């Protein structure tokens, strides 16, 4: 059962045209990559799949993804000039259209970006109305909307880690909306993606980072 829409989905969202799935949703996927990388990339390759492959220029999805990578909001008027602004910032960008990825959602984007020696990948689907699903992060299955408070924890695949982390969250009064876990292999590295109604306190964030079996903790709030 889908949750009923808000009146601000009826009178809104306020966005940069022309299309909520080709601009609004794409900006949001770019912002997710920005926040996972922790900054704007200095190098990025973007693959537009399927329907996006033919229309990404006409709908301005190329500008939208670069705007998101520079962390502009979905209603930021600078989106129109995003390619020029990215060049001014010295971002080395490249677009690649692939037309026949039949196992993928019609509007899928792969972002492979790096800053100095840190590289990340984000695979996102633009579902319409500006709503997105981030399907994979760094190759791990993720499935989050970037519309709530997101927590991405990369850690050793150890017993009880999910129970421990969810207990920490509940003591922080965080209600978990969605959760997804995947790993490279048994006793290898695992990735836990959690969406929460309220954000984690900075102290709790630091505590999770300090745990010996935790490699990385990334968190961000609603990326409109």
């Amino acid at each position, binding site marked *: 059962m889908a949750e009923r829409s*808000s*009146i601000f989905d009826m*009178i809104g969202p306020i966005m940069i045209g022309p299309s909520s799935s080709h601009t609004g949703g794409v900006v949001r996927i770019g912002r997710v990559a920005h926040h996972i990388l922790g900054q704007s990339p200095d190098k990025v390759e973007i693959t537009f799949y399927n329907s996006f*492959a033919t229309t990404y220029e*006409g*709908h301005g999805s190329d500008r939208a993804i670069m705007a998101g990578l520079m962390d502009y909001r979905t209603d930021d008027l600078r989106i129109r000039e995003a390619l020029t602004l990215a060049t001014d910032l010295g971002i080395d960008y490249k677009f690649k*259209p692939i037309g026949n990825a039949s196992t993928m959602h019609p509007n899928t984007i792969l972002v492979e970006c790096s800053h100095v020696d840190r590289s990340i990948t984000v695979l996102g689907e633009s579902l319409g109305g500006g709503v997105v699903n981030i399907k994979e992060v760094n190759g791990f299955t993720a499935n989050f909307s970037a519309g709530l408070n997101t927590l991405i924890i990369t850690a050793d695949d150890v017993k009880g880690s999910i129970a421990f982390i969810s207990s920490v969250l509940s003591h922080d009064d965080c209600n978990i909306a969605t959760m997804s876990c995947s790993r490279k292999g048994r006793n290898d590295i695992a990735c836990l993606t959690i969406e929460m109604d309220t954000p984690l306190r900075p102290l709790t964030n630091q505590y999770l980072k300090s745990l010996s079996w935790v490699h990385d903790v990334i968190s961000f709030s609603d990326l409109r």
Partner: protein
Amino acid sequence: MSSLSNTAAPAPNFTDFATWQAYIQSSNEPLYLPVLHWEMNQKGASETDIWAGIQEAWVVMKDAVLTGLSEDMTSRSGMVNNSGKKVMNSRLHVLAPEFTQLVARALAAKEVNACMGRIVAAPTAGASGILPGTLVTMQELHGVTDRQIAEGLLVAAGIALVIQYNASLAGAVGGCQAETGSAAAMASGAMVYLLGGDVTQVFNAVAITIQCMLGLVCDPVAGLVEVPCIVRNASAAAIAYSSAQMAIAQVTAVIPVDECVAAMGEIGQAMESRYKETALGGLAATPTGKAIAKRVLISDINLMAEAE
């Protein structure tokens, strides 16, 4: 009247118009108030934030009309080329100057969307010229205040919630009738509310508008939100006005509004997928439409050797 009745009608959930109408007739509340309360209850939003959000949307709508009428509106494909300004500057008024202005404003706001400007998707980006065009014109003709417009926008939001629940607001699901049809229904309902129409007249305006917009397919040339979307925003604005005029004059739609919405849902389901935003049928599939697509779309596409 309401104080005499023992059993008050339940507050509406915006799953149909009949419940909303029964509630208004039993409570004598203004039409927008249950929409406001529904959002507060459903989404935990404060009344102050809701009014502020609606006013912000209204400011963006007014700005879109002004931007489209003052700045250069040429899209990357070249199919959009300052039609709002052309209409606003036309010397010969086919009907009346006010009608020329209505058409110009709806075109202008929609062109801002096509040219990557800031708009309100109300209910969608493809239909984003209709509420700005109609309501800016209404404010100028009838001197309604921004606060009254905000009430009208809440009424429009309630109308959209009911349509979304029973049919669709997405061209990919229900064709163009779901986008421009819904926006026109929202606009005519809001306008009849602003002119002092009662709940019967408001919902009658919605019913008449839907009847006029039923069956419209979504067949955008080259898949871009430009042709015929932009001219259709202007015609939808005109239909919103003709419907509001009929409803104010007590012309009845005969078929109740909830049944009109159900018809929209049925037609949307029966529509072939080539008429639902896929750019495979209708205007998109004409020789000229296909030639334009060949020119503006990216043809140098990589193919994967083998699907994963």
